[in-house]
């Protein structure tokens, strides 16, 4: 096969791949995105099967080591003030942080995406009202709102029950983050919907008699799907940050520690003034790496999307 023929074939294959998949392919070509995807996969793995990696979660009673040991051969990340192995805690923390991050991002996307599409497509008063509410949430110190909401919600629900093996304490946090962080997603989706609504293909669909629901399903949603994915990944990063902050303050579940909870323990144990840097380092780096990786993936999708749109126009 001649060189030009094979180039031809590869372009044809590339063209057959639909938008979202092509973005995924392009993503794998960027080295920064590749590293980020590897990191997130590793974290997901440790979140799925922490026991096989580091054994069961250590508690105050099952801890065997001395308190506040610096990193060594036996305790790679050192131990905390109760003698628990920090590697064990950090790996187990991944599950809580990731689950809370993913669930609250899901809530955010459903609320924000739904409101954004309705506001953008309907326009007029519905749009004005919904965006007024969204703006309020965008401006307000939602973290402070979350701080107040979390204990109130917890007292209303009670924190002793479990749903699908997740304690309600965590579900409260998920609900609070989802409820307070949907507005920027709604804004993005609305502006996308608004510009799609003005595009000629939507106008033509109206002209030939397609119903609004069908237009949203056929033309609007497919065209914002990738934007939603990009935004969703960035939202996961934001949710993990918010979760860690809430847990740090002590609103997390002490029986299912997340990275924020561990850092909260470090603060109560005065780790910084004791110079116990390892107590702070492991969980903090876990948060940092996760957030950086998610942001890189989200931004890379966004950039590719942007270029994709530019090339097509």
């Amino acid at each position, binding site marked *: 096969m001649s060189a030009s023929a094979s180039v031809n074939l590869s372009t044809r294959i590339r*063209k057959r791949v*639909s*938008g979202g998949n092509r973005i995924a392919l392009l993503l794998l070509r960027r080295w920064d995105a590749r590293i980020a995807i590897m990191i997130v996969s590793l974290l997901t793995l440790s979140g799925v099967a922490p026991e096989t990696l580091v054994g069961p979660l250590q508690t105050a009673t099952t801890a065997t080591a001395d308190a506040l040991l610096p990193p060594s051969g036996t305790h790679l990340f050192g131990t905390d003030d109760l003698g628990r192995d920090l590697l064990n805690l950090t790996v187990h923390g991944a599950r809580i942080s990731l689950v809370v991050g993913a669930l609250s991002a899901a809530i955010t996307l459903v609320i924000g995406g739904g409101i954004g599409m309705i506001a953008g497509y309907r326009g007029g008063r519905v749009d004005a009202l919904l965006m007024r509410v969204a703006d309020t949430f965008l401006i307000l110190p939602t973290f402070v709102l979350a701080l107040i909401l979390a204990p109130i919600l917890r007292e209303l629900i009670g924190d002793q029950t479990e749903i699908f093996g997740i304690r309600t304490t965590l579900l409260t946090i998920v609900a609070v983050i989802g409820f307070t962080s949907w507005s920027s997603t709604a804004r993005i989706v609305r502006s996308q919907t608004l510009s799609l609504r003005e*595009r*000629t*293909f939507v*106008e*033509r*669909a*109206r*002209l*030939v*008699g*397609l*119903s609004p629901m*069908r237009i949203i399903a*056929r*033309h609007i949603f*497919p*065209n914002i799907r990738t934007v939603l994915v990009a935004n969703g990944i960035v939202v996961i990063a934001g949710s993990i940050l918010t979760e860690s902050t809430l847990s740090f303050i002590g609103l997390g579940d002490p029986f299912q520690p997340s990275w924020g909870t561990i850092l909260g323990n470090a603060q109560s144990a005065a780790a910084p003034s004791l110079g116990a840097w390892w107590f702070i380092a492991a969980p903090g780096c876990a948060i940092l790496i996760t957030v950086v990786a998610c942001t890189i993936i989200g931004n890379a999708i966004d950039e590719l999307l942007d270029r994709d749109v530019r090339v*097509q*126009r």
Partner: protein
Amino acid sequence: MSEQPRANTSASAPLLRVRGVSVTYAAQRSIADLLARRPANGIVALDSVDLDVNAGEIVAVVGESGSGKTTLARVIAGLIDADEGVVEVEGEGPNDWRSVGMVFQDPYETLDPKRTLGEFVAEGLEAQGLPMDRVNTSLEAAELLPAAAFRDRVPEELSGGQRQRVVIAGALALNPKLVIADEPVSMLDVSMRAQILKLIEQLRRDQGIAWLFITHDLSLAWAISDRVVVLYLGAVVEEGAAEQVLRNPAHPYTRALLAALPSTDPGAASTHSLAAGEIPQGDTPSGCRFRNRCAHAVEACANKRPPLEAAPGGGAGHRVACIRAAELPPLS
């Protein structure tokens, strides 16, 4: 497609009948405006426009940007409701989609990048509950051959000219008697234009489809249409057979358009601007809306809007809205 093209001189009612259509775009009002009871002063896009298109006829609507030509196209297509006036196709209201099709300016924007060409053409059929076998015949009629090969392709693989053919196929699927084409070739490369123009003429000849051809290009309007309607600031200032309007323009605005038209003919005189300034953006001038830019304007021009009357020395159907039309000096 056994339908024969009808003679446009028939005494029967026109295919498209537009009477007294006016559209005002309301300026956005904030809550503060409502509280202060400020009146909504809008922008007049169309001001009592009359227009006929007969079966099998190509009528060109000519105007600069801001003349209201795109608004007119949308009103006729039913995408915008007129504030006043009547739009009828074969005596029915504007929602009779099956007899009016539309071709848009930008073929890159008209096709959804996420859908195949077959899905695009089928969209209208599906919405109207028509049989799907028209997809192939429409693609073939738009000279996208073999049709089966195009159905599963996505817009990205097509050139601008091919895309515009697909858009035309999408309009043809609904078996229209009239297609509104809003600047259908202005985004295309010079080499693609001829192909699309050829297709438009072919469809008129073979299927008797009438076209309302919206354009800013006077030469193109003159060449492709039977009749030309000149629009300025939302009102018809001159209309008539293409040849008459271009050879013997009766309105100062039409004359200015013609004088400004550059030509590749080495013998043609060079262009010059007969009109001052640009289409005003805000308020429409009182009386004749062109008077602020017109070299022939007199005081009386400000008094009332000049009616559309038979052009002095013009042929049948040549009408002009200018009180000084009879006194204009001959065009050099």
